[in-house]
């Protein structure tokens, strides 16, 4: 049987009959993330499972699971097609509630910043901030809003030689809340969420967040306008209308 770590829930088919290793990596409100293998025994992959919620009506539960899996996969496919660095979707099953995607070797930006060598100075952080700004700008330029931009939803693709540094390409992950939108307001709010999350997660680096925005501003036509809109969002918070 599959090696299950700490998960009590049975895995969906076909993983319930698997003899290959499945290691629980993280668990969110909607989904469980396992590290496993896919297509060949030496290809690592990420398996995201959306377990059914027993308190929901079965029909509604199925429909929501299907909608969310497909929405996420479609956004990832669009990103891939348009050259935004995201994990590839390898397989999915909306009836059984799972998605397999490419395994990104590396660390989250959050981990990288927490573990960084403070003696190295700010230039490595600045370079990282530039890459973040560029990644988010590219995402927005194709009309995708991430919906939950945080430093734990960004990975640095690293190999053993770059491990422990702030080097590596940014790969955006977890598009569970992503939407396709072309409104300046949506992009500004996306940036605002990142700014706030970043400030509270990385107070030490908060002063350098401006570098992210600076880099963002140069990525696509309209990025400057989004940054101006961000100033309005800062004044009032994430929710536009206080009515209704």
């Amino acid at each position: 049987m599959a090696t299950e770590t700490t998960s009590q829930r049975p895995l969906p088919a076909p993983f319930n009959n698997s003899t290959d290793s499945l290691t629980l990596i993280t668990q969110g409100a909607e989904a469980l993330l396992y590290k496993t293998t896919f297509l060949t025994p030496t290809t690592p992959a990420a398996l995201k499972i959306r377990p059914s919620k027993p308190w929901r009506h079965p029909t509604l539960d199925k429909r929501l699971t299907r909608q969310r899996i497909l929405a996420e996969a479609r956004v990832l496919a669009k990103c891939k097609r348009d050259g935004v660095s995201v994990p590839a979707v390898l397989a999915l099953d909306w009836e059984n509630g799972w998605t397999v995607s490419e395994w990104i070797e590396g660390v989250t930006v959050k981990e990288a910043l927490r573990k960084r060598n403070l003696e190295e100075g700010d230039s490595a952080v600045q370079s990282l901030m530039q890459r973040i700004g560029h990644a988010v700008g590219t995402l927005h330029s194709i009309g995708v809003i991430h919906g939950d931009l945080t430093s734990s939803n960004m990975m640095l693709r690293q190999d053993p030689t770059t491990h422990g540094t702030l080097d590596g390409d940014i790969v955006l992950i977890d598009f569970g809340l992503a939407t396709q939108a072309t409104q300046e307001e949506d992009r500004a709010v996306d940036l605002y969420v990142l700014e706030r999350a970043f400030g509270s997660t990385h107070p030490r680096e908060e002063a350098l967040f401006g570098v992210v925005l600076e880099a963002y501003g140069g990525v696509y036509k309209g990025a400057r306008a989004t940054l101006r809109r961000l100033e309005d969002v800062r004044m009032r918070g994430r929710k536009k209308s206080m009515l209704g």
Partner: protein
Amino acid sequence: METTHLPHLPDHPLHICLFEQVQNASFLRRQLLEGNTDFEYAFLDASVLLSKNHVLASCFRSINDLLNNRLKTRNVHSEIVFALSPNSNIAESFRRFGLSDDSKNIVAIKVGGDRAKIEEHLLANVEGKAVELTDEALAGMHDAARIRKIYRLEAPKKGEVNVLSRESEALLLGSMALKGS
């Protein structure tokens, strides 16, 4: 011939063989059309196969759909041909990915069954040279322009050689995974 197991599908071994310079594709195709049960294989035309993962992803989806009783075609072998297609047109998928009378390089896949018997039967009936299915072998056989057209990938920029990058595999697998949604 190679026998392999896809991760998570321990009960469905795959027997896979790539044949070069096949002389009797029309005979093999006729066996499929006539429903000859001795020829329950997925025969794929290697000219539209990007990589080994491309083939294995199709096998995974087909076996998973078999396990969930939702095959769209007659059996798991025809489903492997169908699963390669980015759309749900069955006849078109067979035309594009299956055998045609002038197929030259073909991949034969059998799900389950006795390895020795399958190997013997394939080697006796496919008139071609059996070689290992690798990305390198497929790269020398596939028609990049056709693959681009089928999966609607962007055409290469002017002056660039029409080769398919590693990134295109992700696009193909994504299209296949989302099919039918």
